């Protein structure tokens, strides 16, 4: 009897559309999800540009001469670990545990900042070697695509700082938890975009 109960419940459950208005958390999360998808569509335009201009090196260096895969591997590790720490923070927020929330958010931030530092170091070394954004169409599209992701990470780090301050000063209020839900979605989505960047730009560009 007990084992059969869930399936009966499933069959008799009304469709989601008949449930009435959704809770605020679901509306906020869904709205932010729509924003993230439109952000991903914007990135897809930059990816298309890069894919088209990939070979337009204007006689200058191409992807295989410029990119350092080891640096990209470290960046990838930082961002993946940061995403995981952000997930741990989501669990701590759901448990309303201040210490673990702050620790995991700090880890998220430090790893994100390490990623950003590595990326800036890479850009600086490229410019130093004469491969600045004005050199060729390939490099312009490269800096636009990767730089746009870096700008998102920078914005995310600022947002992360304000989230830590809000949890510390105001506690786990409902509206602050909603803001944190949006932040965590943003951070995980940036990691997804980075997967596309390291695969298509770096690995595909430097493969043997």
């Amino acid at each position: 009897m007990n084992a059969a109960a869930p399936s009966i419940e499933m069959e008799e459950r009304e469709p989601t559309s008949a449930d009435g208005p959704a809770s605020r958390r679901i509306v906020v999360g869904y709205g932010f999800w729509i924003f993230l998808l439109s952000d991903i569509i914007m990135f897809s335009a930059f990816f298309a540009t890069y894919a088209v201009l990939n070979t337009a090196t204007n006689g200058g260096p191409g992807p295989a001469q410029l990119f350092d895969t080891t640096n990209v591997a470290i960046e990838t590790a930082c961002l993946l670990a940061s995403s995981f720490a952000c997930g741990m923070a989501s669990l701590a927020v759901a448990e309303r545990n201040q210490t673990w929330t702050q620790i995991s958010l700090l880890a998220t931030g430090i790893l994100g900042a390490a990623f950003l530092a590595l990326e800036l170091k890479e850009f600086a070394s490229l410019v130093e070697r004469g491969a600045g954004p004005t050199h060729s169409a390939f490099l312009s599209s490269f800096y636009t695509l990767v730089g746009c992701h870096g700008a998102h990470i920078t914005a995310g780090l600022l947002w992360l700082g304000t989230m830590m301050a809000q949890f510390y000063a105001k506690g786990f209020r409902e509206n602050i938890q909603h803001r944190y839900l949006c932040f965590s979605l943003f951070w995980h989505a940036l990691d997804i975009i980075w997967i596309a960047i390291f695969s298509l730009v770096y690995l595909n560009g430097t493969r043997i």
Partner: protein
Amino acid sequence: MTTAGGVSPGDVTSRRRGVRTYLIGLGLAILMTIASFWAAQTHLIYGPGISVAIVVLAIAQMGIHLVFFLHITTAPDNTNNVLALAFGILIACLVIFGSLWIMANLNHNMLPMEQM
């Protein structure tokens, strides 16, 4: 969390299994990442197949992130999130493959530089 209207993206439906979900996701993501970095440098795979392998691994890893980190699933209370995602993927594919197709076509039909 399964109140009226389904479930918000990013919400863990069962908190007790939360840590395990993130750990499985992290493990799979690390495996995929190592596999694609390995595929880019190996001589074991047939040359033209390498980029296909990298793309397939990237798509698989994105799927893993969506399921284990963003908690987008095929559960009935997740329909709205999945539909929005499907529409986003459709538009992204149109933009990327449409641009590549048009630009390749233009490139093909353009006069060589010497004859201009």
